[in-house]
C-alpha cells in the first residue's frame, strides 16, 4: 500500500531508533550519505539482481546517475571524500532510504536501510565477529527473538583456488565467475577437458596460430576479407587474445581430482558445529590451511563475544549473489509462520574501496538491516 500513516511511520521510527542506539553506543558515527549517486559502481559491482533493479537516469550533463539501491557504496564514497587518510580506522553507521524496482516478491521500491561500515579495522577477525554481534544485538533491540544465522567465507574458496595448480588466467576467470554458479561449473569443466572441446566459428583461425604469428595473421585476415576496423579494440588486443586462446589449448588440462575437490568444497553446507571436521576433509594446500585457521579463530572470537556460532548455519557457496564480498559473509533470517525472511546481511568487502578509486587498499566490514521488512516481521 502506498505511503505510511502517522502510526506506521512512528512505529518504524521507534524501531529504527532502537537499532541506531545500539550502533551509536558501540562508537559508530552516524552519517548521511547522498541519495543520488553516480551509477557506475553499483552497476559494475553489485550483482545482477541489484543491477537490474536500480533506478538509473541521466543528468543534464549526460552523466549516468541513480537512486542508491543500498547504502554501502554511498558510505564508501562518503569515506573516500571525507577521510584525510582513508586507510585510518573509521566506523560509521547510517539510516536512510534506498530504492529498487520491485521484484517478483513485490518488495517495496523504497525502503529504509540501517547499517554500519567499519573501515581499516586493526584486528580483522575481531571486527568481523563484532559486526555480526552488533547486527544481532540491533535486531534484538528492535524486538526480534526467533532468527537463524547463515554464514560463508569466500577466503576459504580463494585459498583453495590459490592452492590448485593451473594457469593464473584460469584462476582469474574462475574467480570472476564465482558469482554465477552455472557459468562457474561449465568453465571448470572446460578446463578439465581443455583442448578444443567445443568448436566455434573462430576455432579454424585459432588452429592456425603458432608462436608469435597472431598479429600477422590478424592483419592478413582483416586485409583479405576487407574488414573495416570498428569497435574500439586494436589489432594487438585481438591478436593477444587469440594467442591466449591457442595457449589454452596447449595447456595441460586441469586434474579432474582437483576440480572435484573444488566442487566438493562448494557443496559443503550444514550446522557450524560439524563444519570444522568437514572443512578438514577437503584436500587443499597451505593457503587453504591458513584460511581454515582464520575461520577457526573467527569462531573463537564469536564465542568470546557471547555468540554461539555452533548453532549457526554454514554454506560454502553462500554469498554468491553479492558480488563485492571478499571474505566473511552472513545473513540473518527471521523465523516467521510464513517461513524464513531475510532481514539483515553483511560481510567483508576489501576490494570495493579500491574499485571505487582508492589509491591504497582499505579493509571494510559492514552490515545492513532491511528495517521495513523487519517491521513487517515483528508486527
Amino acid at each position: 500500500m502506498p505511503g505510511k500513516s502517522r502510526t506506521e511511520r512512528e512505529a518504524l521510527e521507534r524501531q529504527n531508533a532502537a537499532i541506531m542506539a545500539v550502533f551509536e553506543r558501540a562508537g559508530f558515527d552516524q552519517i548521511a550519505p547522498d541519495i543520488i549517486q553516480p551509477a557506475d559502481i553499483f552497476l559494475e559491482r553489485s550483482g545482477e539482481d541489484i543491477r537490474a533493479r536500480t533506478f538509473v537516469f541521466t543528468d543534464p550533463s549526460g552523466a549516468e546517475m541513480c537512486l542508491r539501491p543500498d547504502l554501502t557504496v554511498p558510505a564508501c564514497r562518503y569515506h573516500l571524500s571525507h577521510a584525510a587518510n582513508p586507510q585510518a580506522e573509521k566506523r560509521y553507521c547510517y539510516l536512510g532510504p534506498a530504492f529498487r524496482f520491485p521484484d517478483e516478491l513485490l518488495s517495496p521500491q523504497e525502503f529504509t536501510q540501517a547499517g554500519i561500515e567499519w573501515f581499516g579495522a586493526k584486528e580483522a577477525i575481531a571486527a568481523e565477529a563484532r559486526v555480526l554481534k552488533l547486527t544481532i544485538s540491533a535486531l534484538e533491540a528492535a524486538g526480534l527473538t526467533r532468527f537463524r544465522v547463515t554464514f560463508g567465507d569466500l577466503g576459504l574458496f580463494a585459498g583453495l583456488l590459490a592452492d590448485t595448480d593451473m594457469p593464473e588466467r584460469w584462476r582469474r576467470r574462475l574467480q570472476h565467475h564465482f558469482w554465477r554458479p552455472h557459468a562457474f561449473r561449465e568453465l571448470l569443466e572446460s578446463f578439465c577437458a581443455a583442448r578444443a572441446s567445443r568448436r566455434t566459428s573462430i576455432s579454424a583461425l585459432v588452429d592456425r596460430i603458432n608462436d608469435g604469428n597472431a598479429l600477422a595473421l590478424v592483419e592478413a585476415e582483416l586485409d583479405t576479407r576487407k574488414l573495416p576496423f570498428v569497435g574500439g579494440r586494436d589489432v594487438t588486443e585481438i591478436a593477444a587474445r587469440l594467442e591466449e586462446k591457442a595457449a589454452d589449448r596447449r595447456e595441460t588440462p586441469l586434474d579432474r581430482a582437483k576440480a572435484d575437490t573444488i566442487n566438493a568444497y562448494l557443496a559443503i553446507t550444514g550446522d557450524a558445529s560439524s563444519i570444522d571436521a568437514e572443512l578438514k576433509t577437503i584436500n587443499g594446500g597451505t593457503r587453504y590451511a591458513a584460511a581454515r585457521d582464520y575461520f577457526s579463530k573467527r569462531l573463537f572470537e564469536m564465542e568470546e563475544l557471547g555468540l554461539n556460532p555452533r548453532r549457526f548455519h554454514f554454506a560454502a557457496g553462500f554469498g554468491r549473489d553479492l558480488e563485492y564480498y571478499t571474505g566473511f559473509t552472513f545473513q540473518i533470517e527471521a523465523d516467521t509462520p510464513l517461513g524464513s525472511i531475510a532481514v539483515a546481511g553483511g560481510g567483508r568487502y576489501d576490494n570495493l574501496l579500491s574499485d571505487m578509486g582508492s589509491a591504497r587498499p582499505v579493509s571494510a566490514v559492514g552490515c545492513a538491516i532491511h528495517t521495513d521488512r523487519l517491521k513487517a516481521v515483528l508486527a
Partner: protein
Amino acid sequence: MSTITIAIPSKGRLMEAAAELLAKAGFSIERLGADRGYRGVLKGIENVEVAFLSASEIAQNLRDGKIDLGVTGEDLLREKISADDKACDVLVRLGFGPADVVVAVPECWLDVATMTDLDEIAESFYERHGRRLRVATKYHNLTRRFFAEKGVTGYRIVESLGATEGAPAAGIAEIIVDITTTGSTLAANSLKILDDGVILKSSAVLAGRTAVLDDPRVIRLRAALSTMA
C-alpha cells in the same frame, strides 16, 4: 456483455498483415469516427472494439491492462512483458513478420565467437580502455535478461532509437542488440552475429491478458486465427 478491446498496429506491414488475417478468419475491421481514425469495431463478433496503436505501445498497454488483446511483434512484447509474467500470454503465433533479435559484434573481432568470449574480453577491455563495452539497443530488458543468463556482466547499455546497426561504425557503441531478418544489414555494416547470440526468434503474435482467456469471444478469435496462421 462488456466490450473487449483488441489492438492492431496502426500502420505499416504489420497492420496490413493483421487486418488481412482477421478478414480471412471472418472478422473485418470497420474504422469509426469522423476521420476514420484510431478506433474501430470488429465485424462478425459481438462487442469487440479495435484500437489502432503503434506496435510498441500495444505491449505496454497490454501490460497496463488498458487493452485485452493485441497483435504485435514478439520482440516488442517480450521487451515489455517477461515470459514469466503471468498476467499476459502469447495466444497465437501468426506466422508473419519473422525476425530474430540478435547480439552482433564487429566482424573484425576475429577472437570473438560466443557470449563467453564477450564476457572474457569485457574485463580486459575495461582494463585497457578504462570504460565498459557499450551495447547499443532499444531492447534494454531483453538484453539484460539474456546477458545475465549467459553470465556476461561487464557491459553498459546505450539507448538507440534507430539505425542501431550503425552504432559501432559511428563509435557510439561496440556491440549491438537488434532485430534482423536476413542479416544483410548487419553484413553491410561489417557486423557478425555471435554463435550463441540469438536472443529471440520473433514473429507477429496475438497476445492477451490471462484474465480474458475464458471469454467466449477470445476463445473464438483464438481458434479462428490458429487455423489461419
